[in-house]
């Protein structure tokens, strides 16, 4: 199979000494930063984007792959040792993981999380390698109208996530679209919304927006509410697992992967749902039900696997269609753009070596994680002693450094500040961040596609609806948008859809006790 050839070539690329070093650096950096609560993998990648400016693209992507998975592993380490999850997808891990740690089984918890992440990551990456190219090939056959429909669907999906405020999602989205307008109009060459500043004619660098919204906004928000309370940390030696732990873990690993990957691949899926579902499932299927809530290893194995598989899954739409479905994927996409690589279905055709190198480095990064992080777990725990002022001062420092590195212009710092304040405002008023970033990334592309499609269609609006895929996608979109109304008619709210499992669970528990 041709793809296998490419994959082997990709491995070849990663195997060079310099690139391997990049992989190791990526994994270490990703884990170190992932361990620190309050800094998610999205922010890490955003802060490191400027490093990629003069580094060859393959090296940069190799590093990003390491950061991607490393960040997730770091987050689960923290949630097990500290009971304060590094990010929302680690919340479930914290439930059982921390209890295990308190019972003196921290080593086993960490081991099952690490190995489960490895298994899920490997399977997920294999699936990615298998599924993404065919999707990509199919997508290439689609005409501009269908692709336009898919992009619009991605916008709607990100905004209309189940259980969140559609109004606020829409506000974020349109703010993002407005930011995307800044620049020179590609067809007529006129500057739009550039305030007369020539430096803005290329548009606002997406890197600056990403760093400002994710890093600076977060730092400013935390500054407004700095918590002063150390948490209990559990001392831990090297992670390892006993035989019965292995026996209890391997099936949850596989089940977790099965849950996580599809959710990650679908827009509006997210990583929280699959971990939650995995937890519920493991609880139901477990022969050690009474241990749940006190430290059941299945409760760590399943959700962690789901977490990692979902991360691999989000790469499917990103690599095959150029559509980011979560914040980290969105930031990685900006890295693509900054290299002048156009994300989209043609990615596999135009830059096969790069993509397959990225996929190969995902495998390698996964392996490195296991090899490096298991012994290093106590070291990561020590990182947690960094005082918060230094942490956030560091974030602000590296944000400014990164922004300055883009063009060596203080103007970029001013933009950083402005958008950082925007990020602060969004966090204060509960405006979701993801729609904004997606709006900035996809807005200009959608406009370009729309106008090009109309050009090709001779200016006829109905040409947008001529392809069957386009029509199907529009229908799906309409359903998603009208979901609240439909639910109301059925006399249910979105929240009940999500917590149906939980209710049944509680009744079971009450019945048992």
């Amino acid at each position, binding site marked *: 199979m041709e793809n296998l050839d490419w994959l082997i070539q990709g491995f070849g690329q990663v195997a060079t000494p310099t690139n391997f070093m990049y992989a190791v650096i990526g994994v270490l950096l990703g884990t170190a930063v992932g361990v620190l609560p309050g800094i998610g993998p999205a922010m890490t990648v955003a802060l490191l984007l400027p490093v990629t400016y003069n580094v060859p693209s393959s090296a940069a992507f190799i590093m990003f792959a390491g950061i991607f998975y490393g960040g997730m592993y770091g987050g689960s380490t923290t949630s097990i040792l500290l009971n304060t999850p590094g990010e929302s997808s680690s919340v479930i891990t914290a439930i059982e993981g921390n209890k295990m740690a308190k019972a003196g089984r921290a080593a086993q918890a960490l081991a099952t999380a690490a190995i489960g992440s490895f298994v899920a990551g490997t399977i997920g990456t294999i699936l990615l390698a298998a599924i993404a190219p065919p999707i990509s090939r199919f997508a290439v056959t689609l005409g501009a109208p269908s692709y336009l429909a898919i992009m619009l669907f991605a916008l709607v999906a990100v905004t209309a996530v189940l259980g969140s405020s559609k109004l606020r999602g829409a506000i974020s989205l349109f703010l993002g679209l407005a930011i995307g307008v800044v620049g020179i109009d590609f067809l007529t060459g006129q500057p739009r919304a550039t305030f007369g500043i020539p430096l803005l004619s290329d548009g606002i660098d997406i890197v600056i927006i990403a760093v400002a919204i994710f890093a600076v906004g977060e730092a400013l928000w935390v500054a407004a509410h700095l918590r*002063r309370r*150390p948490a*209990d940390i559990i001392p831990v030696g090297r992670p390892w697992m006993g035989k019965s732990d292995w026996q209890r873990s391997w099936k949850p690993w596989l089940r977790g992967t099965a849950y996580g990957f599809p959710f990650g691949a679908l827009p509006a899926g997210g990583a929280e749902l699959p971990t939650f579902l995995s937890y519920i499932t493991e609880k139901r299927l477990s022969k050690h039900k009474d241990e749940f809530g006190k430290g059941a290893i299945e409760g760590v194995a399943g959700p962690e696997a789901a977490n990692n598989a979902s991360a691999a899954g989000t790469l499917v739409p990103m690599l095959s269609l150029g559509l980011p479905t979560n914040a980290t994927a969105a930031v990685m996409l900006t890295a693509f753009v900054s290299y002048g690589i156009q994300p989209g279905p043609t990615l596999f055709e135009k830059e096969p070596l790069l993509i397959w190198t990225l996929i190969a480095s995902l495998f390698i990064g996964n392996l490195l994680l296991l090899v490096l992080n298991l012994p290093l777990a106590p070291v990561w725990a020590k990182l947690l002693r960094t*005082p918060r002022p230094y942490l956030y001062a560091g974030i602000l420092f590296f944000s400014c450094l990164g922004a300055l590195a883009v063009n060596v212009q203080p103007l970029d710092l001013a933009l950083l500040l402005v958008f950082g304040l925007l990020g602060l405002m969004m966090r204060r008023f509960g405006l979701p961040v993801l729609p904004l970033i997606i709006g900035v990334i996809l807005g200009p592309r959608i406009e370009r596609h729309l106008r090009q499609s109309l050009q090709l269609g001779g200016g006829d609006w109905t040409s947008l609806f001529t392809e069957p895929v386009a029509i199907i996608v529009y229908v799906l979109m309409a359903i998603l948008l009208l979901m609240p109304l439909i639910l109301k008619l059925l006399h249910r709210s979105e929240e009940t859809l999500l917590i149906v499992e939980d209710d049944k669970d509680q009744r079971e528990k009450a019945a048992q006790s």
Partner: protein
Amino acid sequence: MIVIGYSADPFGRAALEHGIAEAKLRGTTLLVINSTSGEAYVDPRFAQSSEVHDVERHLNECGVEFELTQPVGVDTATELLKAMGRDDAELLVIGIRHRSPVGKLLMGSVSQHLLLECPKPILAVKPNEG
């Protein structure tokens, strides 16, 4: 009442032992303060619940009347000085660690600050060698 500046390391434990000895000698009560600035996620000097239980049990066994507080988000020196400002506070017991001049410049020295600022007697101890 004797104030003890406690931390979850040999220095704090040394201070505790000497403080207990003094309290017995003088026949007075103990106020054990284990504070943290709360700046870091993890503060190794902040006593965790298991250690707190051990300390309380130890104090109970010694038969000394005591109070153990763990204020969070405060500066240790300020907190200890505040405690010494109480009328019934007669002695402050702290464990001191060696700080080179550069170390003092960079990281400050709580002990030095206390020694200079506290108007009442201070007993500065070191853990036993070996």
